[in-house]
């Protein structure tokens, strides 16, 4: 059991959070969608696991590399 930090790849605004804590995720499943410069960029699970927590709110601005969610894999 390990806790995996899910980080954003780019600076942007959190447009929509799609997954809920406790939810089982497969690698590649979308956790939330960032909006940056008119583009929507999904933040996805990097491994199979259970979503432990979401560390950001819809509408918030996050910089590249921010931990926005944790997965227990």
């Amino acid at each position, binding site marked *: 059991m390990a806790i995996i930090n899910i980080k954003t*790849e*780019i*600076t*942007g*605004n959190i447009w929509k959070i799609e997954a809920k804590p406790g939810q089982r995720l497969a690698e590649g499943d979308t956790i939330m969608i960032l*909006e*940056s*410069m*008119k*583009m929507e*960029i999904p933040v996805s699970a990097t491994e199979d696991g259970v979503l432990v927590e979401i560390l950001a709110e819809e509408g918030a*601005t996050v910089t590249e590399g921010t931990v926005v969610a944790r997965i227990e894999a």
Partner: protein
Amino acid sequence: MKKLLVANRGEIARRVFRSARDLGIATVAVHSEADAAAAHVADADEAVAIGHAPARESYLDVAKVLDAALRTGADAVHPGYGFLSENADFAEAVQAAGLTWVGPAPDSIRAMGDKQRARALAEAAGVPIVPGSGRILSGVIDGVETAGMAVGYPLLVKAAAGGGGIGMKRVDDPAKLLETVAATQSMAAKAFGDGSVFLERFVPKARHIEIQVFGFGEAGAIHLYERDCSLQRRFQKVIEESPAHGLPEAVRARMTAAAVALCRHTAYEGAGTVEFIVDAASFEFFFLEMNTRIQVEHPVTEMVTGQDLVSLQLRFASGALHSLPQSEIGNQGHAIECRLYAENPAKHFMPSPGTLSVFTLPGQTPGLRIDSGYRQGDAVTPFYDPMIAKLIAHGATRDEARTKAARALRDLAVEGLQTNRAFLIACLENNRFAAGDVYTSFIDDHKNALLAAATEETKA
């Protein structure tokens, strides 16, 4: 026209202010919270804060923009491109408030904004259109396969209310058609509030060539030649040029005549662009859409024709200009525009917001024009599009323009965020590009070579 509000930001707001100043018109900027210290705000005579950073709470808010115009006593509104520029309700609201709308009639915007209606108008004006289906309403699947066969493969599934490449999917295999239509319908319903789609034939090796037009309503219309905008990534333009390399004169004549016919048919008013998809091998051309506003790449046309398109817009809207003979529009030499984006070409052109810690432009040279939305020290925020500046080079020949553009990009310094500067140089100096072999999937097809050349450029 005494005082003009520009309902936009960045380089286009600054560009419109320049022509307004030349005509002795006072200028009003609007800005979001994120743009309080932006270059376009500093350029204007007055500026009004209109809301929070997200565009829908500021630049897209019709009531706030209109209120800013009324409070400052502006008597005209120029929408620029993007944002509210093709919003017929906004145009109507501006006119209803007794202000001058610098753009075509709201009904023209509405008609051209609906791709199906635009196609029907083009067809009625005798403009060739791409083989396509009728409107397929949200949730409807019956008859789609038959329509697909009639259109022919490969084809594109397009959202009727979409634009700028958004809501567009290619289908090569007839077996994949139904699922793609269903997915596009649901995406379009969410994104645009209208789940209608249509099918359209896809031309595998295509060029995107558009005609700049200017309509004078019942007094006719003229064209200002073509722009080749084939170099694109993610369906968005990167490099544009005029004239289109190798376009036979007879085809150019037919394309410009078709664009003017469409304007006359609709009694179009003001600047507009008729976009065509052109088969790179046969030069067959088909109507794509008409943009009822000034375009990002309008400087290419200004460089070859010597006309100031924004000035024409302002003079026509204010009633100072009623028509212009076609014979007054000449074209000379070749112009190339490069769009400098805050993005990372090596990472699928992902946006790269940040602060321009270094941003210095090349020295002034004849035939070189730079329209920038930012200054050194400015922040390029994630809220708006990634374009930092446009660099336009004009020369006697295509090679001269190409060389001048590459040199200027090398003399330009930009740090603090990722940009496509080196990638643009790689495109300009690519052998196939130099030979004029441009088509819409050029960047995709030559991606590895272009990225490798860009990496070398960065090291040098």
